């Protein structure tokens, strides 16, 4: 047992995978001696050597395309894209190849790889460094997409992702890398892909979020609680597969819901969750499901970032509207 931040939990899970499975290799920019720009791979080069912790040239399509080729031959590559905003040069490899080969070859070839990407805003970063485009990946058939919000889930989901027979996009909330610590066993329990977590049971409305936005969402639930409103808080965790059963059961019970994400509103994954809820629970809904999201603008730079990210206040305000509806 040790207390670990989310970043340390990932580092630990990577080390564990490398030591437990010979077929795991890591590829990415600056993941070796530098230990990754966020130090997520710190110490792994020293422990596992250059043959398994592979610094690549600055070429994201290359990282994913080559990692995919390795996976076809049966390895389990874990690829790091330095920031989600730099994943797009590899988008074709992901959507046209990684996600399709199982279908193209009717299970003959498969791509059991993981693509890790730090994502999200809130650290006043430069352009392209605050992206949250999970909806793009979630729309791609054949791809799984998960987003932990706490250290134990980070380690547990990463373990499951590496063991998964299919490709997984693993999104890491930058803002939470060092935000909290959790006790973690040395061999953290795998967390199954496709299960949402009911973090806080409640009866009055359901708050749904994932990744970094869990912080504001939890705080909103606290604030609502202080005024006697019992919000049920769901950490969606896995966008694909989506745990619709848990989501629908919660909203059927509460009759009200707010979905939170930092990605732009239009076509964000919140829309899918709203659609699922209204398909399954319309007759239980007491008010429209509200979306509290980033705006349909480019993510702003440091000096105006605060105008963009959903705040606890915005979530609380939306909740109150939904409760009044």
């Amino acid at each position: 047992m040790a207390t670990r931040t989310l970043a340390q939990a990932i580092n630990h899970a990577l080390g564990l995978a490398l030591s437990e499975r010979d077929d795991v290799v890591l590829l990415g920019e600056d993941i070796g001696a530098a230990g990754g720009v966020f130090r997520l791979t710190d110490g792994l080069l020293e422990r596992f050597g250059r043959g398994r912790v592979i610094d690549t040239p600055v070429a994201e399509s290359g990282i994913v395309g080559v990692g995919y080729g390795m996976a076809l031959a049966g390895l389990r590559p874990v690829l790091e894209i330095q920031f989600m905003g730099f994943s797009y040069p590899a988008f074709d490899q992901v959507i046209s190849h990684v996600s399709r080969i199982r279908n193209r070859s009717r299970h003959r070839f498969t791509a059991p790889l993981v693509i890790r990407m730090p994502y999200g805003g809130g650290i006043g970063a430069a352009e392209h460094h605050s992206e949250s485009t999970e909806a793009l990946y979630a729309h791609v058939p054949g791809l799984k997409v998960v987003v932990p919000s706490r250290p134990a889930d980070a380690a547990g989901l990463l373990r499951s992702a590496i063991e998964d027979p299919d490709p997984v996009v693993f999104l890491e909330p930058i803002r939470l890398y060092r935000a909290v610590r959790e006790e973690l066993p040395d061999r953290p329990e795998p967390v199954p892909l496709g299960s949402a977590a009911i973090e806080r049971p409640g009866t009055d409305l359901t708050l749904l979020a994932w990744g970094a936005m869990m912080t504001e969402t939890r705080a909103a639930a606290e604030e609502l609680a202080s005024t006697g409103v019992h919000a049920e808080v769901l950490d969606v965790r896995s966008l694909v597969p989506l745990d619709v059963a848990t989501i629908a059961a919660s909203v059927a019970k509460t009759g009200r819901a707010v979905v939170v994400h930092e990605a732009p509103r239009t076509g964000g994954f919140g829309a899918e969750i709203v659609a699922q809820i209204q398909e399954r629970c319309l007759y239980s809904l007491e008010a429209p499901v509200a979306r509290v999201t980033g705006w349909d603008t480019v993510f702003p730079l440091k000096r105006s970032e605060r105008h963009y990210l959903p705040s606890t206040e915005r979530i609380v305000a939306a909740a109150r509207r939904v409760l009044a509806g």
Partner: protein
Amino acid sequence: MLRILAPDGELVAEPPATVDTRALYRAMTVARVFDRRGSALQRQGRLATYAPFEGQEAAQIGSVAALRPDDWLVATYRDAAAMWSQGYPMELLIAGRTGHEGGGAPPESVNVLPPSITVGAHMLHAVGLAWAERYRRSDRVALTMFGDGATSEGDFHEAMNFAGVYRVGCVFLCQNNGWAISLPTERQTAAATLADKAIGYGMPGVRVDGNDVLAVYEATEAAVLRARGGDGPTLIEAVTYRVGPHTTADDPGRYRAEEQTEAWRQRDPIDRLRRYLAGRGEWSRPWQDELEREAAGLVDAAVTAAEALPAFTAGEIFDATFAELPPLLAEQRGWATGAADPAGPA
């Protein structure tokens, strides 16, 4: 440009010792029969699409002949001859072109990926495959085939660069067939030759007469030996020509002069090898007839088998998306098969 057989079938250099020339001739003949049938079937509406490779048989058969049966081949929509020659069942090559996903599933023993339809991306896959083999201490190599057009894509660059940096055992075989659909090679790049592109990646670049099966074999064999020995990748430019249309939907009359095509027809790779064999008394009309009969039989059987593959049921289109169907997909499958209300949970 490396050449062993002149167009008239005369030797201009020492032929490689390690190759069965009659076997090459047989394979090229089968490939030609396959190819002609492919175009015919498409015209009859029995194939969804077909990309003829007539004129490129030497480049495909000659290069693959230098591989071991367990080496990897990562090729394109136009490389059916190469894929078949590396063990990909002919019926699956046809099945794919009829529009059946089953065509993408070669037997476990065949290390050939389904054909790449996107231009460019697949070269990276070959680099990864070759790298994984070395990681496992296997000496299997990967050969990837692509066209002149593919050298314009960013992924070509990244694949060549990775291969160079990590000295991966990957052979890059470019079939420069003169055209990327309607764009001639000389309007695709200002480089003097495609082989020159190797320099920027610190690997050898070899230019070879792509209609000379012996030269293609020799160049590939050298590259494969380098790769297998751990000495890294090679780029081979096989200079050839796409005698037919780009696909059966294409009309080359819009963008190229028939005379050019006619001139290349005169340099047909099969004719060339036939002249050589005939000159050595290794070719005869009866043998030719026998080969053609054999080829027709193979192709007939493959077509029959491909067309006999039952089309997928509605449920089957879901079943290879993931190893296991997640709940939402299972639900959709229910709607699609009529097991649940087709309108969904409206």
